[in-house]
């Protein structure tokens, strides 16, 4: 079977890969750690995308719905070699792969008195983003508070080939025109991603491993020159679930990947284990 991605891999712009230096594969944390002090929460992440790992942990700690759009890092100042030694040994002359050059990140924010308080959530997230931007980790981010009160952490700056920070236009800012017509949420998302590719040339894969909800929910999402982000959230709102999205970027292919997950809170199950509790949808003031 012809695998289009394989062809893409060969033809893809190298995006600084040639100068990406092999580095020892560090050991990262599987998940960020959260510690509660007297009045301060400390999040310790150690990952190629440490801000995302920190946000993932905060989501589960408080049941917050937080969208995340990775900064599309590509230059050797933002990515490092990630080629597995075993694969390299078997493919000595082939192009390797990279990962974001992130590592340790420790952030602190005031302990929210009420997890459901949007002001506390906003303060926590804006503090984390500000602290992250002060580190050498790749990408610069902003916290956006959307008109519906949802919080979205958006990558807005990456380093270019000279190592200088440059502004980027977030992919989901792209205005799209989508006909208002009854479709499933799944088909609507695919239409949005298809329109994005047509408008920008950037391919976006939809990575949902449990997709029945999106196939069974109907929507009439559409509009003229509406930011892709808005169309996506309009479609997801029809599920009546607190679905959050993550948009990541793989510079090796290159390709964006969109994944979805319900907002959940993780808590002790009373027997030494952990269990998930659905986060309740709440109306937020922007």
């Amino acid at each position, binding site marked *: 079977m012809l695998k*289009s991605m394989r062809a893409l891999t060969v033809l893809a712009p190298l995006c600084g890969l040639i100068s990406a230096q092999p580095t020892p594969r560090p050991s990262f944390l599987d998940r960020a750690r959260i510690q509660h002090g007297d009045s301060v929460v400390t999040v310790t992440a150690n990952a190629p995308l440490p801000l995302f790992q920190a946000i993932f942990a905060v989501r589960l700690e408080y049941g917050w719905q937080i969208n995340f759009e990775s900064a599309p890092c590509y230059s050797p100042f933002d990515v490092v070699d990630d080629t597995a030694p075993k694969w390299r040994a078997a493919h000595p002359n082939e192009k390797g792969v990279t990962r974001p050059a992130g590592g340790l990140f420790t952030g602190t924010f005031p302990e929210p008195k009420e997890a459901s308080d949007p002001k506390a959530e906003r303060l926590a997230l804006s503090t984390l983003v500000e602290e992250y931007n002060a580190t050498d980790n790749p990408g610069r981010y902003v916290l956006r508070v959307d008109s519906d009160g949802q919080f979205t952490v958006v990558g807005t700056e990456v380093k270019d080939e000279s190592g200088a920070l440059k502004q980027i236009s977030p992919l989901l800012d792209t205005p799209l025109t989508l006909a208002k017509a009854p479709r499933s949420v799944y088909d609507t998302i695919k239409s949005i991603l298809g329109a994005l590719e047509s408008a920008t040339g950037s391919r976006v*894969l939809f990575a949902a*491993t449990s997709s*029945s909800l999106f196939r*069974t929910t109907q929507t009439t999402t559409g509009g003229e020159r509406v930011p892709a982000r808005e169309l996506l959230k309009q479609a997801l709102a029809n599920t009546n679930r607190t679905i959050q999205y993550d*948009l990541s970027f793989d510079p090796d292919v290159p390709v964006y990947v969109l994944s979805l997950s*319900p907002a959940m809170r993780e808590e002790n199950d009373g027997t030494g284990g952990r269990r*998930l509790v659905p986060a309740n949808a709440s109306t937020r003031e922007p």
Partner: protein
Amino acid sequence: MFHNSEWRADSTHNQIMAVTNTGQKPTNALVTLHYDNGEKSYEMQQTIQPGDQMFVNIANLIRNRVPDRKGNTLPADASFGTYDLRDLSPGLGSLMQGNLTLDSTFGFNAKPPYPACCPNLAPAWEVDEFEVLVNGDYGDPIEATDACTGGQVNISNLFNDWSSGNPSIATVTNTAVTGVSPGTTTANASGWVLEDGCVTVPVNLTNPVKVENAPSGEITEFVGTILITQGQFLMTLEPSTTSYDNHSVTESSPVLGTNACWWSTSGMVQYPVVQGDTWVVDQGGSAEHNQYGKDTIGFESGVVNLIQTQGAAHGVEFPCAINIHQSMNYDGIDLYVTNLLTQTVGSSTVTVCRAGVCSSTIPF
């Protein structure tokens, strides 16, 4: 119940309240004084013998720092507020209240302000029929419209006789209807309610009760693939002797899953969970009697292709598996089964499974 009447006690005002038990049995009166704009309250509870009275001199309570039933005292600067009077004893209310307000602002003046009577209109259970599962509970508060506020109030405490038409099918208490065995019966409650005209009248409520068995499990059937690498499944609830048609089943993830195909720029979720879909039994798609579906599992071909082309270089070992835990709840309440959903990606094959039922090996 009388409520939201005003009281005032300061250098030129006082209020003396008399609560009389006009009934034939001792009764329990609760007078609650609200102050500080209603944010705080002071509660006096007293058993009143037939024909006896409970007197409340508000200025005296303030001046002498008399503690209430919770040990609280009225602050020395408390001067006005509202009060409620409730008869805590079950059955016919037998309290009668009279007031004397004293006003010396412009010379002595005394008048008896009568408190507002707040009937409970249209008492009823909040549902027309109780549908409960065997061993399941359904909260059954009796509510009525408070004629003073227009809001719904819980008046279950005014009902003292709760019964089931058939206790072998369901039991009925003042807090819940509980399913015992499959069948139908009635829930009954009797009490005394203050109705329009401030007359206490007997009220008897009866509601039908339907008790059903929750599913004991389900049979999963693989029905095909979509977008090459996703599996679709149809489920049949068991036992087949019970009809579950038109009821709902909802998925959730009790714990985080695992994704051995993941790497940091893959964009896949590292700890996958189900999205929380709800299906109605015997509705939609190819679902027939006692069936629901389809449940679509697995990444579509674009993502599987990404795994196969990029994963190995990132250190992913093939075959790699994505595992998701899925709990199934019947009618949003009863957990009847927990499944493992998997998608296993080889270098040129894919397999999708639900609850141990798998697709054939999909070449890709």
